[in-house]
Structures are given as structure tokens and as C-alpha cells.
């Protein structure tokens, strides 16, 4: 009897899940491969918000003379390389023509092979690790890369703070964190600086000993490219221990989580990023309205309407996907993949054009600092590596 109940339930679940994914004929599916939970949940949600806003602006696309409804298929990859594979196969099996994401390089690399096997092209939005696009022809990205970002930060540290010693704190098992830390380390040492690198394990929340280590090293800057979750703890504990040297980080820290953590505390925070709020007034306003229009959106953005750079990038990514579909003139993933190589698009975060690796050609990063009084980002400089 019990077994019958179980099997009946299973059948029902199967039936519902089958019907759930039936879609109309003239529909093109854009897969969104983003974390909504786990370490990178906060960033992934902000990135997805940008896509949702773009989708609300333009939910249809004309492909080869036919008007298609876009189906934005959002699947949570849980910030977890282990679960990511199933999430990726889900997107492929939903018939996605193109896939956007992910926030976080690790899951992008993890899902890459599944996309390749399914023959679907993917456009990385803010995954900055070189390994994402290296050695394949289906993964593209619209952001800059970590070797570039690491060098920018190293230059910035040595030019603006005359830093000679840098303490680098990265998260174990996080490809983004390890990669950016590594490139910063290389660039900083090339400039004649001295570094000390340490890693913290996953699930760590006690950062006091790391901050003590940085102080004992007499670091001039602390470089901590981590997820926002760890970042909030690092900032809090650095402030508690009276750290006066600047904290540097990459694009992940460009988030209101950081602003909230730093508010009314005596810390200096500098980040490199893709977009500066105020760069496009019309987009900013529209985005803020979109965030404020819905409680869920507001919660997903961390409770206020600060526009994160990843949101702007997500917005651009959606239009890049539409442009690719139009250029391909078909919803066939292979054709879309082909079209991406020659695609150009001008978005709110600048010009997008792919090189032979599938990476966007970008040579500029914005540097911002957290204003601990107003709880907003202050623009510091635009930095390139040629300087």
C-alpha cells in the first residue's frame, strides 16, 4: 500500500514536471544559468535582475522575419560545481538557443562541457577567470579578464598608495578568488612589491586571525577578492580590529552588501568594476524603478535600489543574446554560436566585441571606493594597464 502511494506520487510529480515545460511554438528560449543560492547567491540574483529588467523592456525578438516570444528560463546552479552540471543539462534540455551566465567563474567552467555537448553557446556575464573561454569555441564573455583586473589593482595600489607590501586573502576552492589573487600577486611582485598570500576554507566565518596576520605582515594594502558573503565578514572584522590600510577587491565586491557592511565604519575599500552608476542616467532610473516596483526584486537586490555593476552587465548580456539571435536569423544554437564571433553591440557598460578566444575586447576598468558616510560608491578613476 505504502509503495503504491509513493509510486502514485512519483507519477504525479513526473506528469507535472513534464507539462510544466511545454512552451508555445514561436518561442525562443534564453537560458539563464545563475546562482540564486550558495556563496554567490547575492551576486547571481543581482545579475539576473538586469536580465529580467531587459526582458521586461523587450520580451520579443524578430528572428528571420518572424516575431518570437522570449522565454527567459532561469535555473539556479547553487554556486556549486557539483550541482551545476544538472542545472546546465536542465537548460540544454529545455531547448535553450543561447545561455547567459554565470556569476562566478567556477560554475561557468563546470557547466561548460555540458553546454558544449548539447551544442549550445554560452555568454559569460561577469565570470572573469581566463579558463572559462580558453580551449573552447562555445563560451564567450562580455566582461574583462582577471589577468587584466589583477594588474589594474596592482598598478592602482602601487601608484595611489605607494604600497610595497600586500596581503592577499583568497578563498579555497574558488576559481575566481584564487585566480584573481594569483594575477594580483604576479603583477604586484613585478612592480617590486612584497606579498603574503593566505587562503581561508569554505564556511569560514572567523577572519580575525587572517586580519591579525595582515597587520603583523605590516601590509600596505589588503587584497581580498572573495564572494560578498565573506567580504561582509572581512570588512566587519577588519573594522573591529582597527585596520587602517585600504582593502582592495575585484568586481564581486561592487555590491550593496559591501556598502551596507562598510557603512559608518572606519575602513577604506576600493574595487575595480565594469560599470559606474551614473554612467547612463536613463538606464539607472529605469533599473531603479524596476527594482522598486516589486518586493521580490527589492529583496533580490539586497533591500535597496543601488544598481550593481553586475546588474548592468546582466542587462547588456540579454541584449547581446537578442542581437546574436537576430544576427543568426535562426533559433538554432549552432547558428547563434557562429553569429556571436562577428557580433558587435554597444551596451550601457560599453562596446562588446569578441576576440579569437571569445573574450570581450575591453581595456578599461572603473575604480570605485565605498563612501562609509553616504553608503554609496564614489568614482575614483578609470584605469587601464598601458599607463
Amino acid at each position, binding site marked *: 500500500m*505504502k509503495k503504491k502511494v509513493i509510486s502514485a506520487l*512519483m507519477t504525479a510529480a513526473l506528469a507535472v514536471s513534464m507539462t*510544466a515545460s511545454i512552451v508555445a511554438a514561436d518561442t525562443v528560449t534564453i537560458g539563464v544559468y545563475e546562482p*540564486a*543560492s550558495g556563496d554567490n547567491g547575492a551576486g547571481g540574483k543581482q545579475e539576473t535582475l538586469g536580465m529580467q529588467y531587459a526582458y521586461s523592456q523587450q520580451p520579443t525578438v524578430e528572428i528571420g522575419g518572424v516575431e518570437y516570444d522570449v522565454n527567459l528560463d532561469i535555473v539556479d546552479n547553487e554556486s556549486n560545481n557539483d550541482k551545476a552540471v544538472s542545472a546546465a543539462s*536542465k537548460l540544454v534540455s529545455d531547448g535553450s538557443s543561447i545561455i547567459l551566465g554565470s556569476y562566478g567563474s567556477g560554475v561557468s567552467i563546470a557547466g561548460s562541457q555540458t553546454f558544449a555537448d548539447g551544442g549550445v553557446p554560452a555568454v559569460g556575464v561577469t565570470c572573469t577567470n581566463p579558463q572559462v573561454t580558453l580551449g573552447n569555441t562555445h563560451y564567450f564573455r562580455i566582461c574583462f579578464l582577471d589577468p587584466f583586473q589583477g594588474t589594474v589593482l596592482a598598478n592602482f595600489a602601487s601608484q595611489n598608495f605607494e604600497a610595497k607590501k600586500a596581503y592577499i586573502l583568497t578563498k579555497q576552492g574558488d576559481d575566481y578568488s584564487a585566480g584573481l589573487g594569483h594575477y594580483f600577486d604576479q603583477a604586484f611582485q613585478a612592480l617590486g612589491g612584497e606579498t603574503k598570500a593566505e*587562503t581561508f576554507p569554505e564556511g569560514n566565518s572567523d577572519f580575525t586571525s587572517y586580519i591579525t596576520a595582515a597587520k603583523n605582515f605590516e601590509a600596505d594594502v589588503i587584497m581580498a577578492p572573495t564572494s560578498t558573503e565573506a567580504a561582509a565578514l572581512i570588512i566587519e572584522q577588519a573594522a573591529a580590529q582597527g585596520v587602517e590600510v585600504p582593502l582592495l577587491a575585484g568586481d564581486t565586491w561592487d555590491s550593496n552588501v559591501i556598502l551596507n557592511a562598510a557603512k559608518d565604519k572606519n575602513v577604506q575599500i576600493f574595487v575595480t568594476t565594469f560599470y559606474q552608476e551614473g554612467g547612463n542616467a536613463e538606464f539607472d532610473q529605469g533599473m531603479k524603478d524596476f527594482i522598486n516596483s516589486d518586493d521580490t526584486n527589492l529583496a533580490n537586490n539586497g533591500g535597496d535600489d543601488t544598481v550593481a555593476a553586475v546588474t548592468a552587465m546582466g542587462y547588456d548580456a540579454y541584449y547581446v543574446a537578442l542581437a546574436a539571435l537576430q544576427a543568426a536569423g535562426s533559433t538554432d544554437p549552432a547558428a547563434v554560436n557562429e553569429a556571436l564571433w562577428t557580433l558587435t553591440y554597444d551596451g550601457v557598460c560599453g562596446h562588446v566585441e569578441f576576440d579569437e578566444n571569445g573574450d570581450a575586447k575591453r581595456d578599461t576598468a572603473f575604480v570605485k571606493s565605498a563612501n562609509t558616510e553616504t553608503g554609496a560608491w564614489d568614482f575614483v578613476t578609470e584605469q587601464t594597464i598601458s599607463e
Partner: protein
Amino acid sequence: MKKKKELVISLVLIAVLIGILRLMEINISPQSKWAMLMTVLKKGSIYALVAVSMNLLNGFTGLFSLGQAGFMMIGAYTYAIFTIPADQREMVYMYYNGGIVKFAIPAICGVLLAGVFAAFFAFLIGIPVLRLKSDYLAIATLGFAEIMRALFQWDTLGPLTNGSNMLRSYPTPASASVIYPFVVSGVCIAVIVLMINSTYGRAFKAIRDDEIAAEAMGINLAHHKRIAFTVSSFFAGISGALLAMFQTNVQAKSFNSAMTYEILLIVVIGGIGSVTGSVISSFLFIACSEWLLRFLDEQHVIGEFTVPLMRSGFRKVVFSIIIMVIVLFFRQGIMGTREFSISGILNKISGRSRKAQKGEPK
């Protein structure tokens, strides 16, 4: 005579199964909505192997070990390290100048080596920890798994393990075809079943039921425990290699204690001490967690009515409630300690038909 008949029927069934799998594989493209079924079958067969290997320890020998994820990790890393093609190593080990291993061995050798390495580590770890009893053994094996995980992520070992970065670009036959993991897991599970039915298996069960009595009967406790632990880890290592293929990348951080708990749940849901139970519950568990319940994560609108509660994460809540219900109300798991066997079914059928012939009331 009867044995022979059973063997023939089993072989025919296996051939039919492989045939069906092959047909499904040809007909289901990755874009089809049934493609998730193939993912479930692949991952399910891999988990079936590790669940059975854990059952061998926990269910049949009564050794409560929580090190399974650690041995899977050793297997996965061994496979990945030795099978990455030489020309890909520069890219994978990009922070370590291509690493120190400069050759590649064929995939199937890699799988075997994965098992051997896991077994070797288990043998070493077994020397200190197998002296411990029940929960102390559990926490010590869990501890070893955590230590191994930290070791594999150690930057200093980077030229070998790529530090905490991902290993990838190795051959992935288990991801390409569903038959591969089925055959490898199937053969391994068959070996485990043979072992359980041998004198070793009987000695294991004697140890489980009463250590002191078993010792009094002349069973060498230390020797048998070590064998069970090593063999179980060997197969955990092989399933780790298969998982590495399935995931197409390996990273130490995913082999954490949560993974061990997941496998333990599968074993218990299937029934502690039932091999077929572990296999069935692996497929059910993976199907529910990865596929069937996914619709719960999406918002559904029926007419004007928005179905409440359904949003990202709801799937997992429902899933954990299902697990709690099974644990509380179906204590024996799906199979208890019974086994699903062809002869059992044959007996039932023939018994029924005989009854029917005699015209007995049911």
C-alpha cells in the same frame, strides 16, 4: 539446473537493459526534455555504486564509517590527474606550469587506478581508525575525509593536484554515454554481491551481529574489518572516478561531509543491508533531487491564480520533508534487508500459477 536458468534469464535481462539504454541514447537528444532522464540515469548509476559500497561497510559489516566522500575524492583526483591528455596540461595547470605529471594513461586504467589508490589510502587510514568503535569510528573517518580534502587543496601540492583549482579536460566516457557508468557500476556491484555471498560476507555479517561472538567463533576481527574497509573504499574510489567523468571537472571542495550524508541517506532509504535497496533508492533520490521536483522552484500561474509558496528553494524544502516522512514512517527503508531477485520473482510467479492451476483460493 535452477541456477543455470536464473543465470540465463539474468543475462537476457541485462542484454535487454543495455539495448533499451542504447535505444534511449540514440533517440533522446540533449535538447529534448527527456534528456534530464539520461542525466539522472548516469548520476544514479554512479551513486548506486557508492551507496552499495557504503552499505557493505555500514549495513553488512556494521562498521559505521563516514569517510565515503573522501575516498570518492581520492578516486576522482587520481582519475583526473592521470588521464588529462599531455597537451591539455599546460592549460589545466596554468598556475603550476603544467604540473609534474606529464603523461596520460587510458581512461579505463585511470578508473582502476582510482580504485587502487582509494583502497591504498583506506588501508593506511584503517590501521589507526579501525581500532575505534561505533561513533568514534564515524567521527574519525569523517575527520580523515576532511583532512584529505584540505590536503588536496593545499597550494604546495599544486603541481600534482592543481591546488584548490579545478581539474578538467580529461576523457569523459561516462558523461558521453549512459552505458559506460551502467556497465562499470554493474560489474562492481556484482563483485560486491559475490563477496557478500562468500565466506567473507558471512564473516562480515557475524561481526555486525555480535563482535564478541564472531571473535569466539574464530573470525579474525581486525583482518575482516580491514578487508571490508579497503574493499568498500576501492569501489568508492571507482565511483569517484565515474563521478569525475560525469561532472567533467573535479574540485575537492564538493566532496564534503554533506556528500557523505547524502550517500548515507540513500543507503538508509534503500534499506540498510539491502544491495538492491541501495540501487533503487539511488535512482529515486537522484531523480527527485535533480529532476522531478524542479517544477516546484518555478512560479506557476493557473488562470488568475498564482500557486503560492512556489519559488526558488521550495523544491529542497519539499524534498527534505519527503525524506523526513520516509525516515519516520518507513523505518525499514524501501527494501528493508530483503533483496529484489529474479529467482524471487520467478518463485512468486510460478507459485501463483501453481496456485491458480490447483484452483486454490487466494
